[in-house]
């Protein structure tokens, strides 16, 4: 089996894997990072979104081998010394989740948006979330949370 090496949440990890191992399987099953969810497994729902070299990707639609040598950040890597990332804090504060299943992907996707556009309007946020499906909230409070996080992060 080939060896895959990547930096996950700041730590270098190396494992022998079957080439067909998906990135999401690698994170959940090899590394035990179960914050990244599998909703559809068909590239539609965005529950599995993580960052690879700083951009958001659906980890169910990438091979672990394709991330060899990359920097990967998962929802577990966002908080800093036990302090929630402003996006996580805003989802909590503004009730941006109900069951929480979509939340890790929503948060990772939203963090990527703010990197590109620190001050997105509501329309931009809603368009950006086209790849993230939530079956509970109706999106309203998710959008609100992202707007508040953006304000917080702009300082």
């Amino acid at each position: 089996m080939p060896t895959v090496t990547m930096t996950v949440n700041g730590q270098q990890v190396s494992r022998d894997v079957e080439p067909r191992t998906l990135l999401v399987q690698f994170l959940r099953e090899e590394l035990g990072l179960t914050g990244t969810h599998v909703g559809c497994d068909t590239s539609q729902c965005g529950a599995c979104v993580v960052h690879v070299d700083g951009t958001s990707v659906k980890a169910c639609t990438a091979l672990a081998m394709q991330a060899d040598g990359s920097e990967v950040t998962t929802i577990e890597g966002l908080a800093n010394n036990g302090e929630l990332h402003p996006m996580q804090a805003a989802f909590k504060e503004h009730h941006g989740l109900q069951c929480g299943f979509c939340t890790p992907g929503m948060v990772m996707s939203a963090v990527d948006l703010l990197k590109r556009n620190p001050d997105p309007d509501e329309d931009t946020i809603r368009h950006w979330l086209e790849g993230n499906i939530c079956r509970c909230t109706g999106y309203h409070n998710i959008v609100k949370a992202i707007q508040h996080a953006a304000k917080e992060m702009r300082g």
Partner: protein
Amino acid sequence: MYGFEYHKPSSLDEAAKLLADNEEASLIAGGHTLLPTMKQRLAAPSAIVDLGGIADLKGIREEGGNIVVGAITTHDAVAGSDVVQAKIPAMARLAGGIGDPQVRNRGTIGGSIANNDPAADYPAGLVGLGAIVRTNKREIPADDFFVALFETALEEGEIVKEVSFPVPEKAGYAKFHNPASRYAIVGVFVSRGPQGVRVAVTGAGPCVFRVKEMEDALSGNWSADALKGITVPEDELNADLHASAEYRAHLVGVMARRAVQAATA
């Protein structure tokens, strides 16, 4: 998904050799078509050749007045490119309207055109501008590249290297998208430039096609009004649960007029 060997060559020659040595091998670029197909076991390559390590295949440059886009350039990179936005804004908008942000962060122009999905956006852009596809073996005009449903002029083991787009005087793209997948139910790309006046339609039929009657009308009078009353026959158009052939035929007219209205220099 069945098992396979994984290779990540660092040159095009090495990739071509791996394909030649493994009859059942498949290239992977963004993986956003191939991996879902493999999960469904509709494809089961014995080996995967990852193009992601070939630096020459990535990036956008200007060359002799054309815009050249490397095969593994992502949709997001095309949408956000300063050169594309300045020279062919319609192409930047087309790329920025593919799927969702995460699909655009992974999916590539080479993978999209090699796959030739009847509802994909890029085929309309390439044919609508009269682009040239360069492979590791030859140059193929877009008009000859897209052959039929999921079929291209690519031969066994042939690899798309880059796509060269002539810069148009005016170009516009309008798509009526499927609200779930964002693929085109009908998309029309129009342009006027070095390759003449072009009207290319995706999503409506089994493969991208041009509408000569619309091109002639726009050659005489570049305006949405010039297209009034021009229809396309519905007999060869797609019909599925999203739209009937009759509705698609109607949408071709509507999208063509919107594309002309949206066309910018």
